[in-house]
């Protein structure tokens, strides 16, 4: 927790992500791209979780008040025990490492109990304020915890100094230990009541598991007395404390079982929340709840382990049982600076915490001790929670989730690899075929993924999201689902690779840039929902014998390696032809090793023993026990072969069905393709039809228009014809008129001719007359000639002019006079 605060301060360095981990330079850009998405997601999920927790807190208050009483009483008893242990520790220190604890004075105890009951009262007060605690903001809680861890660290350092402390300080120490205790209880109480309920439920699971494996657990705890026998003689009572508390809380659990059923409905809700990710601020607490830290916690156990460790170091006592942690200690020292190197939180203090945590675990579970990878796990946990909480979380993960994974032989991890390969073959046959072709084994890549639980393999956000689900599920299913999801995401790219190196490099770098953590988690949880713990267990059962055989083989190596293998290996037809040669070889090399051993007898003595025993057995190659062994071996081989055969048959069947399926699918695909084609054609035809119709309509329209036009032109023609007829008629009429007119004209001409002749005649007559009667005529003319001579001359002149014009000869006036008469007549007629 302290670490997380530290890291928060110095996070803003460019090349580190939000968790303070170094980013590869080539990935900084992508991380930046995703950091805003992460921020959004974080906001979203923090409101979701807040709602959920508030809701749960309300509905749960009822239960919690009922539970409180029992809790308080439980706390009281553990406090007593712790006090006793501490007391013992102090006294032990007084007498210099060898302690007799049976004589813890009863007086002292009663006195303490008085004090304790006071503490308990405070405790009650504290826990009576759950409503307020709900409303506590996250920051104050953190500050509280910081204070706690700080004090706890003080306590720890004091404990390590304890050996130097004198008995006079016992009073002070007592007060101190009381102080640390009360706030330690606060640390647990400060888990929000709602988270608390998650915790209870998860604790139920833990308890159930523990009950099932009770034998196993007590076995794993067996080391405690052995350590304590040397360290302190009070080990037994520590053991008692363990059992007492465990039993107590088990009783509690039985009561809670009833309520846990009613709580089942919200588990699904919680599950979907977990798939969406746990908010950063809650992660530490929620993880503890998932792992069931509360149910695991044994008061002062952690401190005791550390005290034992420091005692041993003090006294330089190197008995057999301490050699093993010593070996681990070396490795731990090597690995501490190589754990998230450069992380701002892993300064001197951080590394000390890490060291204590790992050493305590190595003492707690010597079957595992220390295994590389745990350093990373411990480091992550320390970033999220106080040291002791981190210890119990680590215990939970290592002892339950990954039981048998990190032990000397790493059996379960090898089994898981075989299981994973089978799942791969089942899910991605094409990809596995390709990898087979390239000579790549899936386990080369998935092995490190599983062993590191993806730490350093994926970007941090994704690692933590995977851990969220993994810890929630309470088993290793999420490992498989995530690995399968990665294969699903990157399989297509892998199929394009041409050689083994490229394939592995590509997969590593693709996995390393899986920044889309939500996509990864959802692909894993939804896409591979069918991969369940039950199925995995079945597969593990199937593959475990093979691994066990190999492991046994390896462990036999120093002893009866060759001959036990000789016959059997021929049976399963592995190349093993140079048996004799190898015997020589091994004897020779054994000799070399023995030489080396002489120079360093201390370090290699155990190995030498093994080798010696191996050599002696070697010399008895033909003896009876060996034959028996061989028979056993052969039996195992036989059963294994049978199993293999069965699995081969099964796989063949599977493949056949898969093939059928594929063929079917192919057919279906073909059919659907054809249908599609036909449909397309139909659609085309329809389209064409529609087009044609449209054209038709258009044509019709055109036609109609043409018709109309035709009609119009017809009309026009008719009217034109009519007009023509009318005109013809008019012409006819005009012609008639013209004829008439010409006829008249002819008549007129005739008349004119007549009038001319008449005029000539008259002219001739007049001239004749004038010659006959010249004077009389003048009288007569004078008498009557007022008007007649004027008229006669006018008419005569006109007729003569007209005659001249017509004949072209202006001969005389008679014509003109005549003509003018005619003209007069013509105009009269017109």
């Amino acid at each position: 927790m302290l670490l997380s605060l530290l890291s928060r301060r110095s996070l803003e360095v460019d090349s580190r992500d939000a968790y303070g981990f170094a980013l590869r330079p080539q990935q900084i850009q992508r991380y930046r791209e995703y950091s805003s998405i992460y921020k959004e997601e974080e906001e979203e999920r923090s409101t979701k979780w807040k709602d959920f927790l508030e809701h749960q807190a309300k509905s749960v208050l009822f239960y919690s008040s009922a539970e409180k009483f029992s809790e308080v009483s439980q706390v009281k008893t553990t406090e007593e025990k712790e006090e006793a242990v501490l007391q013992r520790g102090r006294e032990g220190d007084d007498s210099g490492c060898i302690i007799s604890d049976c004589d813890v004075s009863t007086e002292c105890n009663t006195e303490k109990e008085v004090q304790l009951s006071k503490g308990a009262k405070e405790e009650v007060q504290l826990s009576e304020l759950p409503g307020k605690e709900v409303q506590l903001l996250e920051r104050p809680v953190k500050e509280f915890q910081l204070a706690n861890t700080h004090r706890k660290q003080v306590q720890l350092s004091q404990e390590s100094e304890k050996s130097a402390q004198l008995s006079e300080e016992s009073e002070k120490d007592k007060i101190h230990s009381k102080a640390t205790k009360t706030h330690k209880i606060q640390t647990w109480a400060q888990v929000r009541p709602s988270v608390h309920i998650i915790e209870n439920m998860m604790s139920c699971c833990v308890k159930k598991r523990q009950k099932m494996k009770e034998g196993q657990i007590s076995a794993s705890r067996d080391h405690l007395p052995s350590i304590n026998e040397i360290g302190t003689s009070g080990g037994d009572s520590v053991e008692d404390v363990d059992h007492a508390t465990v039993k107590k809380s088990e009783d509690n659990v039985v009561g809670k079982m009833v309520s846990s059923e009613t709580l089942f409905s919200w588990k699904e809700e919680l599950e979907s929340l977990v798939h969406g990710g746990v908010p950063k601020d809650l992660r530490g607490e929620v993880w503890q709840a998932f792992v069931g830290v509360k149910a695991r916690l044994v008061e002062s156990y952690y401190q005791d382990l550390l005290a034992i460790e420091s005692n041993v170091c003090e006294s330089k006592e190197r008995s057999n049982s301490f050699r093993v942690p010593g070996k681990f200690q070396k490795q731990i020292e090597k690995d501490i600076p190589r754990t998230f190197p450069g992380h701002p939180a892993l300064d001197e203090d951080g590394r000390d915490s890490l060291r204590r945590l790992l050493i305590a675990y190595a003492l707690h579970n010597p079957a595992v001790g220390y295994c590389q990878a745990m350093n990373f796990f411990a480091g992550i946990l320390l970033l999220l929670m106080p040291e002791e909480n981190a210890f119990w979380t680590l215990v939970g993960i290592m002892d339950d989730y990954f039981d048998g994974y990190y032990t000397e032989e790493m059996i379960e991890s090898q089994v898981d690899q075989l299981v994973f390969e089978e799942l791969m073959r089942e899910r991605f046959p094409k990809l596995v075929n390709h990898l087979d072709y390239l000579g790549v084994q899936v386990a080369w890549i998935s092995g490190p993924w599983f062993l590191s639980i993806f730490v350093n393999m994926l970007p941090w956000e994704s690692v933590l999201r995977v851990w969220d689900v993994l810890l929630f599920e309470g088993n290793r299913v999420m490992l498989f689902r995530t690995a399968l999801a990665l294969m699903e995401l990157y399989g297509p790219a892998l199929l394009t690779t041409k050689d083994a190196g490229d394939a592995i490099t590509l997969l590593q770098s693709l996995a390393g840039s899986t920044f889309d953590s939500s996509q990864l988690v959802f692909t894993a949880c939804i896409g591979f929902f069918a991969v369940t713990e039950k199925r995995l267990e079945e597969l593990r059962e199937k593959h475990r014998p093979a691994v066990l055989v190999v492991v046994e083989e390896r462990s036999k190596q120093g002893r009866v390696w060759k001959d036990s293998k000789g016959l059997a290996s021929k049976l399963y037809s592995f190349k093993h032809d140079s048996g004799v040669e190898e015997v020589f070889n091994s004897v020779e090399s054994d000799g070399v090793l023995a030489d080396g051993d002489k120079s360093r007898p201390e370090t290699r003595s155990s190995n030498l023993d093994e080798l010696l025993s191996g050599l002696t057995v070697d010399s008895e190659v033909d003896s009876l026990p060996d034959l028996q062994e061989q028979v056993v071996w052969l039996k195992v081989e036989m059963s294994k072969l049978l199993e293999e055969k069965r699995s081969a048959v099964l796989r063949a069947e599977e493949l056949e069905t898969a093939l059928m399926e594929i063929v079917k699918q192919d057919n279906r695909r073909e059919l659907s393709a054809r249908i599609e084609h036909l449909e397309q054609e139909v659609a085309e035809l329809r389209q064409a039809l529609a087009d044609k119709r449209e054209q038709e309509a258009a044509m019709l329209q055109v036609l109609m228009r043409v018709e109309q036009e035709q009609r119009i032109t017809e009309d026009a023609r008719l009217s034109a014809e009519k007009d023509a007829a009318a005109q013809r008629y008019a012409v006819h009429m005009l012609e008639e008129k013209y004829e008439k007119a010409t006829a008249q004209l002819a008549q007129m001409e005739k008349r004119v001719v007549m009038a001319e002749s008449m005029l000539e005649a008259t002219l001739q007559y007049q001239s004749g007359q004038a010659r006959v009667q010249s004077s009389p005529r003048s009288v007569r003319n004078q008498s009557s000639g007022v008007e007649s001579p004027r008229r006669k001359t006018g008419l005569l002149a006109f007729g003569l002019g007209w005659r001249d014009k017509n004949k072209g000869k202006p001969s005389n006036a008679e014509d003109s006079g005549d003509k003018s008469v005619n003209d007069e007549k013509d105009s009269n007629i017109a």
Partner: protein
Amino acid sequence: MGCSSSLPGRSSGRLGGLNSSESGGVPDAKNLRVKLVLLGDSGVGKSCIVLRFVRGQFDPTSKVTVGASFLSQTIALQDSTTVKFEIWDTAGQERYAALAPLYYRGAAVAVIVYDITNPDSFNKAQYWVKELQKHGSADIVMALVGNKADLHEKREVPAQDGLEYAEKQGMFFIETSAKTADNINQLFEEIGKRLPRPSSSSS
């Protein structure tokens, strides 16, 4: 491959036969592709050697290797052949030896590293030599490497010891320093020279 490939450790004896296809005896004699595995005690500098060789970098505080990690690098030799090394860098802690067969199986080259300041790591190297002689490919090229040669004032394993042991086992021996880059490239070039050429031998 079928069933058999799904049973890693126990097939150790058989794999010499599969070797040619797995270890990448590429038919092309000019462009070799080889699988190389680095073995040795924890903290002797296996990862540092690889990082120096592949990326030319040295980080005094590199990460613990969990399981194994993979890198590849191609070099050109003087006879104008190129060698692509596919390098598996394994975890050093003793118990990870249980997983080592997965990685050294089918490897054409094994580089066994010890720390010249740490005699225990030299013992561990001898263990690996034996392990490979028993379970490795028959024609595996092995190199014994004494790393951290820059720390000569803290030397505890004389170069002579390493050389003698290597000669006895028919191995190539060299002392290197990933920190100063001494002999790192020479190591890989020498390995490249010693590789069986596909044309001359049927690997």
